[in-house]
């Protein structure tokens, strides 16, 4: 227990953590089929937790310590699943051509011409499309649709109808950043794994690695019901739309005002999204912690999008919740990019905030 607490006074991102993130990102775990990542997580956390079980839906539920007699129980949660697709019908057996449907929110315009991997064996395949020579100008103006595209496995591999697949992009380190598929939310999963290695004096720590977030926050609902914590902290990966503006018709120099979050600005603290209004008491505590410890943070812009907190905070008689995310560009596409410094800020912010969180927070007025 608490192996690292002696050598370090707070968690950091080292090559060891990055190697773990790589393994997590390269695995296939589309909503409803999270086994591969679940297994990786179990192997990682085994030495640090005293109790774990897998529930009816496949959530991995964890208690850091068996006896939990402290007055505050905090659940940290990260979803295991990623967006992807499922093979839904076989069109040509010999050639290995399949129809597919998307699982989770992928813009179909990212699909064409990408390598994919399908099934337990990670069978190789592609999503092909007509050669440009064979298209008309009009066709090129319209976008591809899922109905019009196929997964081509070339007749090889063992994949079959009902199998799940993802883009086949391998993890890569790019200077201070990482590029991979499924950073949403393996970076959150890796963060929770790290957090479980440390002791928290004032609280009982429980954790949920949840399933089926990308198809409607389903796993988190039953996970929170089962664990019934006093407070929940959800760790996720949130879009950074911090790209340059391409219109310049303003009196003032134009500003991108809908960035959601920005890479390099630190941990993203949620205020409000489609499914949750963050508990203001928790927001204050995390902001104060960040400022005291000098940890970079930013507010994720209020608006659409949702995290597991949306399901968690409505369980039982209400569970005050807050989401903290690592910003990532191009989520739900073949290759997303996140900054390692933001990841470290997120990890350290949650760690320090949990060090000082106590039951008193729930006694103050919301």
């Amino acid at each position, binding site marked *: 227990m608490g192996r690292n607490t002696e050598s370090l006074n707070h968690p950091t991102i080292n090559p060891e953590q990055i190697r773990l993130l790589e393994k997590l990102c390269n695995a296939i775990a589309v909503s409803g089929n999270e086994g591969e990542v679940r297994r990786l997580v179990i192997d990682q956390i085994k030495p640090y937790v005293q109790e774990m*079980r*897998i*529930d009816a839906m496949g959530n991995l539920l964890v208690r850091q310590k068996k006896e939990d007699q402290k007055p505050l129980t905090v659940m940290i949660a990260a979803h295991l699943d990623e967006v992807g697709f499922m093979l839904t019908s076989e069109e040509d057996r010999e050639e290995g051509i399949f129809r597919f449907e998307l*699982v989770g929110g992928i813009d179909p315009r990212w699909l064409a011409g990408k390598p994919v991997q399908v099934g337990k064996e990670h069978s190789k395949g592609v999503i092909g499309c007509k050669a440009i020579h064979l298209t008309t100008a009009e066709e090129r103006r319209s976008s591809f649709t899922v109905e019009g595209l196929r997964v081509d496995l070339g007749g090889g591999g063992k994949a079959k109808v*009902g199998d799940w697949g993802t883009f086949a992009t391998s993890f890569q380190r790019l200077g201070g950043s990482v590029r991979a598929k499924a950073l949403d939310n393996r970076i959150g999963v890796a963060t929770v794994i790290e957090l479980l290695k440390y002791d928290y004096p004032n609280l009982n720590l429980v954790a949920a690695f949840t399933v089926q977030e990308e198809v409607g926050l389903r796993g988190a609902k039953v996970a929170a019901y089962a664990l019934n914590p006093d407070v929940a902290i959800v760790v996720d990966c949130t879009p950074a739309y911090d790209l340059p503006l391409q219109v310049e018709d303003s009196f003032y120099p134009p500003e991108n005002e809908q960035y959601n979050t920005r890479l390099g600005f630190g941990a993203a603290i949620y205020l409000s999204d489609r499914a949750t209004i963050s508990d203001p008491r928790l927001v204050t505590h995390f902001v104060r912690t960040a400022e005291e410890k000098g940890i970079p943070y930013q507010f994720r812009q209020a608006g659409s999008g949702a995290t597991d907190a949306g399901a968690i905070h409505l369980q039982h008689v209400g569970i005050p919740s807050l989401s903290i995310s690592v910003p990532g560009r191009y989520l739900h596409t073949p290759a997303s990019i996140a900054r390692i410094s933001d990841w470290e800020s997120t990890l350290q912010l949650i760690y320090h905030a949990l060090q000082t969180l106590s039951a008193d927070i729930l006694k103050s007025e919301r």
Partner: protein
Amino acid sequence: MKTSDLSNLLRKLTTPPGLSGYEDTIAREVESLWKPLVDELSRNRLGSVLGFRQGSGEPPRPRLMMVAHQDAIGLMVSGIKEGFLRLTEIGGVDHRILPGQLVQIHGKRTLPAVVVQPPPFLLPPEAQEGSVPLNYLWADTGLEEKEVRRWVQIGAPVSFARNFLELGSDLVCSPSLDNRASLCALTLCLQELQGRKHAWDVWAVSSTQEEETLGGAATSAFQIRPDLAVVIDVTHGSGPGSPSHKSYPLGRGITLGWGATVHPKLYETFKELAEKMEIPYRMEAMPRYSGTDADRLQTVAEGIPTMVISIPLRYMHTPVEIVSKKDVQRTARLLAEFATTLEIDFMDKIQWDETPKA
């Protein structure tokens, strides 16, 4: 069961309108059919019918819940103008099937009526071309305004006129076969369980409001807290207008659902059972959700391992829905076999592969 008896049972179950929320008629029919087949019969507070058969295993026995929804789609009176009735929908109805549709208005008295489409010059410009939206159609009872106001109130449910047809030797056609065909299969299953032993407690649930909120199965499950749940519903049958990769031929077997809603080990169990019993089936890929009670049921309380079995049906949500009697019987046999072969320690066998050793 003789096939004529099966037709009669289907006719019985499709006769009550039982629109979502207004299900007393169908609930009473289910109660009278199930009464001799179960040990205890009750109604959930929202109106689902719960039939309980005690298992033969040692207590505490695990609980199996098998659920088919009893409610049907239809229409509702939303306004009365000069004796004509304005309509809104209950569940999902394609308004394009409505002009000329014979209906029954369930006011203080049940009145026959027809849904009509006004001529273009009596419609606002935006509704003159293309399909006419539901709120510009009228239901006409043929009665004078005074009479109409006497018998009909805003909120009166409106059901499709009942018209039960036998087509050929195997197909039947009627409104509300979604989901009375499944309710029929569940009833046949309870008949088959007569005189057979099952170690588990069995709960048969005829659920309310699937077409509106998926609420009946979920609230019943919260009450029953089953260890496993099987949802029986209809799926799209092959036929004119149905894309072949999204529909299943009538009379050639049932579908077993696969996807995030379904527990994979439960799928495997049903698949093996169907193969052993030589019941033809196809996997129905449900990549995001099942579109059945299972979607809400699965996430009740701490989560319930759930299976979805579907009967192919043509022309869903129209008054001319068609199913195959053979498929209904196959569903019933499969359910009964599953219930009777469930071993008392079955829950230990459907663990996830990665489950840590205790």
